[in-house]
C-alpha cells in the first residue's frame, strides 16, 4: 500500500493501549477511557497493525467508535465552583523546593484581608443552583497564620450553603506545625478535609521540611496532629508527601508509617518543578518512585481482597477514575471551574500560579476574566499539547500539571504511563476478585 509521506513521518494519535494482565489481554480506548478485555485474535491484529490508523479501523470493526471531543473546545467557560484562598502568603517553614518560595511567592509576606475572603466566597456562590457542589480550600503559604480570616470565610460559606441547599466541601492544606486543639474542633464542626504536608516519617521529612532556623519539624507536627487523627469523624485528616530524589528510597516505608499513624488517606506526588530547581525528580528517580508506588499499590490490592484498609490515595483515585471511565481533556479544573485567589484579591489559574501575571484571571473587584478562561481552556486542552495529542494516556492524564509543564516541560511521561498501566491491571484484578469494592463508587 502506498502511504503519503506525512502518514509515515508524523506521529499518529494512538487510539488506545493494549496490555497484558493475569486475567487476559485488555485494551484501553483513549477516547472515553473505555476498558475492554480482548480476544487473542484481537490482540494479534492489534500487534500486527503497522500504524495507528489500522488500529483505529480495528476498533471500529469491533464496534468501538469515538465519542467526539471537538464540542468541548467551543463550549462556553464553566462557572467557577472551586476556589482556593491564599489566606496567608507567608510561612514558618523553609522547605527546600516550595512552589510558593517559602510561602510568599517571592514577594513581601502578606495576609488576605477579611473583606477579600468574604467577597471570594460570594463569588463562589454566584448564581448557585440547589444541589450544586462547590469547593473552598485554604492554602498559602501556611493558612493557619491567618486563622481568623480562614474561620470567618468558612463560616460565611457554610451559611451560604445552608441557605442555597448547595453541597460545600471545605478543605485546608497545612504544614501542621501551628495546629491547636481548637482547630480540630472547628474543622470537625465544618467537616473539613485537612491535608497535612508530611514528606515521610521522621528524618526523611525533616530533611525536606525544616523550620526556617533549620531544625526538624516532624515531631512537632505529629504531636499537634495526633489529637485530630483521633477526633476525625466528619473531618478527614490526610497526609500528602512530596517526593524528591533524596526521599524516593523508602517511599513505601513512609506510606506505611503514615497510614499506621491513622491518616484517612496518604497520597504523594513527585517534585517536578521548584523555583530554584532544588529537589526536582530526574528520570532515574522517577523510575524508582514508580517501583515504590507499585509496591504500595500491591499492598492496597491485598488489603482490598482481605477486606481491610490500606488508604494509599493515588491508587484509590485511580481505581475510581478507571472504573467510571473519567475522560479528562484537562489535567484539573485550574483556569476553568477552579481558580486561586491571592491575598490581594486577584484571581489566578490555581493556587500554584498565585501572583504570576501570565496566568491572571481577573480579580474579585472586576470579576472572572471569562475570555481568558476560554483562551486557557482551549490552549491547554490535551489535544492541543505536544506530544500529548498522540499519547494513549491523554484522557486519563489530561496532559500533566499546567504549572509544572509550563515551567519544566514533561519529563515524567514514562512514569505517568507506567503508573497508569499498573493501575489498569490492578483494576482488572480487583474487579474480578473483589467487585464489591466498586459498589460504593458509582
Amino acid at each position, binding site marked *: 500500500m502506498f502511504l503519503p509521506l506525512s502518514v509515515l513521518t508524523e506521529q499518529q494519535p494512538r487510539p488506545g493501549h493494549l496490555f497484558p494482565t493475569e486475567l487476559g489481554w485488555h485494551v484501553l480506548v483513549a477516547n472515553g477511557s473505555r*476498558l475492554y478485555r480482548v480476544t487473542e485474535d484481537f490482540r494479534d491484529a492489534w500487534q500486527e497493525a503497522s500504524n495507528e490508523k489500522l488500529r483505529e479501523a480495528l476498533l471500529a470493526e469491533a464496534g468501538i467508535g469515538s465519542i467526539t471531543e471537538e464540542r468541548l473546545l467551543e463550549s462556553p467557560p464553566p462557572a467557577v465552583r472551586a476556589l482556593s484562598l491564599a489566606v496567608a502568603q507567608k510561612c514558618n517553614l523553609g522547605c527546600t523546593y516550595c512552589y510558593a518560595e517559602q510561602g510568599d511567592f517571592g514577594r513581601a509576606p502578606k495576609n488576605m484581608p477579611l473583606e477579600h475572603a468574604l467577597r471570594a466566597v460570594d463569588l463562589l456562590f454566584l448564581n448557585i443552583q440547589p444541589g450544586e457542589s462547590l469547593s473552598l480550600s485554604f492554602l498559602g503559604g501556611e493558612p493557619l497564620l491567618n486563622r481568623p480570616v480562614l474561620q470567618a470565610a468558612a463560616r460565611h460559606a457554610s451559611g451560604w450553603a445552608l441557605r442555597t441547599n448547595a453541597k460545600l466541601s471545605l478543605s485546608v492544606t497545612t504544614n501542621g506545625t501551628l495546629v491547636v486543639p481548637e482547630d480540630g474542633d472547628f474543622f470537625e464542626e465544618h467537616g473539613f478535609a485537612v491535608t497535612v504536608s508530611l514528606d515521610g516519617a521522621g528524618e526523611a521529612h525533616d530533611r525536606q521540611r525544616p523550620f526556617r532556623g533549620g531544625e526538624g519539624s516532624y515531631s512537632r507536627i505529629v504531636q499537634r496532629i495526633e489529637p485530630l487523627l483521633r477526633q476525625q469523624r466528619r473531618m478527614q485528616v490526610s497526609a500528602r508527601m512530596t517526593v524528591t530524589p533524596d526521599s524516593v528510597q523508602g517511599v513505601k516505608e513512609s506510606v506505611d508509617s503514615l497510614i499506621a499513624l491513622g491518616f484517612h488517606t496518604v497520597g504523594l506526588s513527585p517534585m517536578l518543578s521548584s523555583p530554584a530547581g532544588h529537589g526536582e525528580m530526574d528520570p532515574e528517580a522517577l523510575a524508582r518512585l514508580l517501583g515504590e508506588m507499585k509496591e504500595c499499590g500491591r499492598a492496597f490490592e491485598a488489603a482490598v481482597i482481605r477486606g481491610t484498609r490500606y488508604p494509599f490515595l493515588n491508587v484509590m483515585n485511580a481505581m475510581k477514575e478507571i472504573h467510571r471511565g473519567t475522560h479528562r481533556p484537562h489535567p484539573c479544573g485550574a483556569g476553568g471551574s477552579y481558580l486561586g485567589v491571592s491575598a490581594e484579591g486577584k484571581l489566578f489559574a490555581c493556587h500554584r500560579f498565585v501572583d504570576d501575571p501570565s496566568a491572571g484571571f481577573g480579580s474579585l473587584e472586576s470579576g472572572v476574566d471569562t475570555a481568558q478562561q476560554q483562551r486557557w481552556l482551549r490552549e491547554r486542552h490535551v489535544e492541543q499539547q505536544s506530544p500529548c495529542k498522540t499519547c494513549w494516556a491523554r484522557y486519563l492524564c489530561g496532559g500533566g500539571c499546567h504549572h509544572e509543564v509550563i515551567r519544566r516541560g514533561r519529563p515524567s511521561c514514562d512514569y505517568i504511563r507506567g503508573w497508569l498501566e499498573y493501575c489498569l491491571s490492578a483494576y482488572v484484578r480487583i474487579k474480578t476478585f473483589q467487585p464489591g469494592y466498586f459498589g460504593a463508587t458509582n
Partner: protein
Amino acid sequence: MPNLTLDPTNLTAQFEHRGRGNPPSVLPLSAISNCFPGLEFDFRNVWRRVLEGIVLHEAVGVVMDVDPGVPANITELRGAFLVSVDGDPTIGDVQGPRTTGGAVESLGQDFLEWSNALARILTHAGEEVRCEFQTQQNTTITRMLKVRRFFHADELTNNRTAAIGKDLATPGELTQSLCSPWQNDYRECGCYYWAASRPDYVNVETAGGVTSGHNWMARDRSAAAPRAYTLNNSLLFTYDELFQNWETLLKFQIDGRDET
C-alpha cells in the same frame, strides 16, 4: 473470520458498548429515545418505577398503578398526580407566544419531562424522599417514598454495572410505548421527526422559485385538488382510515409524485 468480540470492563465501556451487528441507534448518544418515544426503546419508561410502591405514567405525573401488597395509604395514591419530589416541582408553567410572533405569555401548567425533573433524586437512591400528590378531589397528600437504585448491582458481589436496574422496568416495559410508525404516530408526529423514508410534501411543482404541492396525509391529492400544504384536520386522513386502509390511501412516491 477472527473473533473480535470485546468484553466491556469499566462503566464507560459498558455504557458505550454496541454489540457487533447492532446499529448506532442502540447507543444512548445516538438514540432519539431520551425524551420522546424512540424507535429502539422508550427511555421515559425507566422513570415509571423510580419511586418504590407506585407506578407512574411515562410522560405525565399520574399514578397509574401501585405495587402488589402495598399498604392502604399507598393504594389510595392511584389516579393522583405527583406534583413534587424532594422539594422539586414536577409541573412547570409553560411560557411562550400563543401565535407566531405573539407576545410571550403563560400557556398554562404542564408536566416536566422526567429525565430533567427526576435525575437529581437519584443521588438519594435507597433513601426516602418527600413526595407530594394532588388527588382527583384536589386535596394534597404527602408520602415518604423510597428512591430505587438506577443501575443494576449484583446482589452477591454488590458489583454495580452500567445496566439499568431490574426493578426499574419489568420485561417488555422499556419498549412498550415505542413509536408505532404504521399506526397513530405516523400521522401524529411532525415530518421532521421521521427518517427520510416518510414522505411529507408531495406532488410538488416549482414555478418562479415558489413551490406548491400536497401534504401526503391529505385525503384529496388529485390533480384537481388545490395544491397547498394543508394541516387542516378535516382535510387529512383520520387515524381510523389509516388503520383500516393505509396501504391504499398512502401511495408510494415515484419521482416525488403519487404512484398512479
